[in-house]
């Protein structure tokens, strides 16, 4: 019982579970569903899961957010003492970047989904694959 308590009460465990769940659900959406929108959403979940792992890397026990709050206290030694207690700011910056990148990619994917739906009236990826191959075949044999 004790061991299980230890594990379940550990934040670390739950963070891992959440991120893996996000990743796996994302992969399910991307790979195993045939619906384009689900694929895009899956991508979002996947990237969210990865981002959690990345931002987790910067966490330090007993540390504070990386912001110097005692603005009036400009003694360098004090600031240094404060910053030494802070978490790693680099992963936060990286995750910020990664989120924006993911947003851009997903927006692009969505716009493609819109276009595809307007053109073919379906969002089934297998049907669309066949449609693409058929288009290719037609364009090869009709060209003048």
């Amino acid at each position, binding site marked *: 019982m004790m061991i299980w308590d230890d594990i379940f009460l550990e934040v670390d465990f739950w963070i891992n579970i959440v991120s893996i769940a996000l990743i796996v659900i994302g*992969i399910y959406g*991307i*790979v195993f569903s*045939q619906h384009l929108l689900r694929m895009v959403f899956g991508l979002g979940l996947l990237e969210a899961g990865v981002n959690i792992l990345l931002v987790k890397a910067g966490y330090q026990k007993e540390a504070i957010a990386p912001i110097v709050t005692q603005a009036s206290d400009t003694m360098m030694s004090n600031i240094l003492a404060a910053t030494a207690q802070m978490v790693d700011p680099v992963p936060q910056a990286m995750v910020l970047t990664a989120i924006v990148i993911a947003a851009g990619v997903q927006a692009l994917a969505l716009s493609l989904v819109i276009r595809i739906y307007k053109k073919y009236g379906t969002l089934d*990826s*297998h049907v669309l*694959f*066949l449609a693409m*191959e058929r288009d290719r075949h037609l364009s090869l044999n009709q060209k003048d």
Partner: protein
Amino acid sequence: MSVLDLDHVFFLLIVNIGIAVLWGNRPFVGKILTLLYILEGLSILTSYHVLLSGAVLSSSLTFTVMQQTVQWQLGVSGGFFALITFMAAGLATWFSSGVWARSYAPIRLLHSYMALNVAAMLLLLASNDFLGLFIAWELVSLVSFLIIAINGGRSAKAAYSYILYAFLGAMAILLALIIIWNATNSFSYVEVRHHWSTMSVNRQLIVVLLLITGFGIKMAILPFHRWQAPAYAYVPAPVAAFLGAISSRMGLFALFIVLLQVVGIDVIQTLWLPFEIINMQTFLLWLAALTLIIPTFIALRQTDARLLLAWHGIGQGGFMLLGILSANALGTAGGIMHVFNHASYQAALFFAVFSVSYRTGTADLDRLGGLVTRMPISFTVMLVGIIGLAGLPPMNGFVSKWLIYKALLDEGMPLLFLAAVIGTLGTILSVYKLIHNTFLGQLRLEHENIKEVPWSMSIPMMILASIVFITGYFPGLLLESIAAMQSTLGISVVDYHLGGVNTGKGNLNMIVVVSTMLMAIGMGALIFFVLGNPRKQVTQWDNYAGGHFLTSDMRYQYSHNFYPGLMRVISPLYRNTIFWLESAIVSTVQFMAHISYALFMQANYLLYLILLVVISLLWVLAV
């Protein structure tokens, strides 16, 4: 004597190519090109004494890459082959320079490709290390592809199969080269020879086999023989003569240089195939013997004269290899001499056959016959040629074959000797079929009005025929350079004189042999005519068959289905295994291609990525 003599030849070759490409369509240009080929041949011939003394003609064409200096210089062996090349190219161009050219539309292509071929071959002959050799080798393959494909249709198909075989060979050579480089860190012949023994025995074996495969494919040794006959048969006359005479000998040249100069026959003798089944040399000798026998008997079955000759070309290649691999002064001399001899009579035979098909429009042996009165010059040339091909005196083929027989017997290989004799037997049978079905027997009605080919075509044939005779009469002419070749390669040198060779146990003097034969024939003729010339001129149709009168359109003499009894005996042996193998490979490749393509055409290819990730992560966890 300038050292850079080879530059002149290269320059002339470039001029040659330029003229052929720019003005190949003009009627006079064939003659100019012929002159140029002769000029190139002469420019080598004038400095030939230098080559005989063991020196080389070098060129300024050189470059350094990967610490290797690649340069081109012609030694005596290259010079010998180069002379044959120029002879074949010159006469072939001469053959095509006159009336023939008007009947052949892509004449410019023909001239250009021929010039390119000659240039590439000279590069090959003058190459002085493996890198240069390989570069030239690939060039030769490509330009041969061009010239083989020149007629389109069937010939293009043959060319395609040729280029695939050629690439197989090139890759084998490349692999061998890389292994050699890995062991010796060099491509130069001298260095490789020097460091040869640093390779493990297995590696040596692999390298030798790869080189044999690579170079052997060009000369169509078994089991890579299937491409050659169609490739050489369905091309225009000059090309066929040129290819049949010299093209596939490039493989022999390379083998000769590599096996004798670089690897050394002594190394080959000490190599054994796995499990010591058979000695390398014996293995190769038997390969050569099979290459001699099987294609020769395939040739026997052909009804197309061009195919028949082309198959013989493969078989005679086996003969040459047999001689060279016998590692005996007489044998190597015979093998190399046979290159020249084969070139001369094969070109003559191709010319004769193509002359016939030029006039009659067919080379099908079942639809010819009795042309001797209509085309006497072609007949004579073919007669000389087949005597040479069959290896009978007084023509040059006899000398080289004799040397090879002698070498095989001397080396204590009676079974191989027997194989060679069987091969010769097949040759004699089939060349008889050739000349009989073409020139003897009954003239067909549709060939009533045909004439001898024009001079522009018959003169080259006659020149070739006389070469066949003269070098048969005075084999010493050739043996001189062969002896020089042997001494530069450091193998035992044949003891020759103008009329033939001296061996320990006896002596061949063709001057005596031929003179005796001529005298005997002369005496016979004398007797014949002195005794009153009891002959009577009849027409070909002045015949009776069992009391029946035959009308002129009825054939009483058939020329197809030759040797039915023999065919019945040997045809079970033609279980075309190689053909089966080839088509099996083709279908395997197509199957693989289909599978690979289908692999790419997947609706859900994201799965591959995930699978790869999972598999690789599992692998990581497992490691």
